[in-house]
């Protein structure tokens, strides 16, 4: 297995799957401002996808393009975190997920800026600016909703309880992570766990939310071994055009 290719797919697929999920809010968000914010966030993530998968396609060197990787792979070839593929459900879950992801992504991309792979460092530096802006909004919104009305607090707590068992996957190091750490391309995800937990705990306390105790972690997304049933449904929508009209372009 080419570990660098695998690593790049993970970065790109995280951005792509969350970007697509977020774009599902376009036109139906609870308020116009939120609609615009969600759609802009999705746009940033799709832009980052192009950078990561573009580089992945080059590293693979088999003539596949960025679009081929995004639109012509099946669910079991996707390497995104399970947390990012579960349905949006309500606005609360969408924002809680965004927050859990952003709280990891900011220190992660920050560390990747020092990557021994120049291209990785460049993509990380570009994406970090956007990720910081996303974290500002997602953490503020989680606090506003958690410390809001009885209903918004209840919804946020339900979202946190639902998502929590999916967060552990972020920090499960495997052979690819160790290979990347060994060559100085990236730190081990587990090295960032404490930093992530501190940000999450502080925000949840400010948001009047209880942090779940469970240490159980659903796994299988970033390795591609076992995705949830939801990814296939999402890809069916996302990929339908290229599947039905191969090579279609505008």
């Amino acid at each position, binding site marked *: 297995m080419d570990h660098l290719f695998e690593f790049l797919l993970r970065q790109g697929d995280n951005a792509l799957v969350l970007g697509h999920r977020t774009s599902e809010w376009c036109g139906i968000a609870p308020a116009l*401002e*939120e609609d*615009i*914010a969600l759609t*802009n*966030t999705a*746009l*940033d*993530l*799709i*832009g*980052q996808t*192009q*950078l990561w998968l573009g580089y992945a396609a080059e590293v693979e060197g088999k003539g596949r393009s960025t679009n081929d990787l995004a639109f012509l792979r099946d669910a079991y070839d996707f390497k995104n975190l399970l947390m990012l593929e579960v349905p949006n459900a309500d606005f609360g879950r969408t924002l809680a997920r965004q927050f859990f992801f952003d709280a990891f992504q900011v220190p992660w991309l920050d560390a990747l800026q020092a990557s021994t792979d120049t291209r990785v*460092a*460049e*993509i990380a*530096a*570009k*994406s970090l*600016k*956007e990720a910081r*802006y996303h974290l*500002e*909004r997602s953490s503020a919104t989680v606090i506003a909703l958690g410390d809001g009305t009885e209903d918004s607090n209840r919804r946020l707590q339900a979202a946190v309880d639902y998502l929590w068992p999916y967060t552990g996957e972020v920090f499960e190091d495997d052979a690819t992570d160790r290979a990347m750490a060994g060559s100085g391309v990236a730190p081990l995800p587990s090295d960032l766990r404490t930093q992530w937990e501190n940000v999450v705990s502080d925000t949840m306390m400010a948001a009047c939310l209880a942090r779940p105790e469970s240490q159980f972690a659903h796994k299988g997304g970033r390795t591609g071994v076992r995705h949830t049933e939801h990814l296939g449904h999402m890809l069916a929508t996302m990929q339908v055009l290229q599947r039905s009209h191969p090579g279609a372009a505008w």
Partner: protein
Amino acid sequence: MAARITEDQIWAWLEAVPDPEIPVISVVDLGVIRGVEVSGDDVKVTITPTYSGCPAMAVIAMDIETALARQGVTRLNLETRIAPPWTTDWLSEKGRARLEEFGIAPPQAAGGPERCPRCGSAAVEKVSQFGSTPCKAQWRCTDCLEPFDYFKCI
């Protein structure tokens, strides 16, 4: 081509290419042109994206090609570079002034607009961190009550 093209000439032509979404400023004012190199009839222009997913970048590339082709540049190599990442520090002073005249508050390191671009009041509040394009946020003036765009500082 009669006369040899110079790099200054290319910069001047690019000065006349408007940003497709904020046409009061040029692509040079926006700070996305990172380099111009001329070697004989070969012209190389390096651009950098504002936001990684900004859909205007494709239009900007097309507008640059069209504008330079109109001036007789046929051998154009348009390159995209992401490092160092674009920052609003690269907006020109002229660009900042034009933005404000147009009703868009220019970026401030403090993270919010200095004043309302319509009435000049400093009494402003944020409506949303995002706006009509990836580079803008929505604010409003609590004196004249007008909503306005703020060019995000990154």
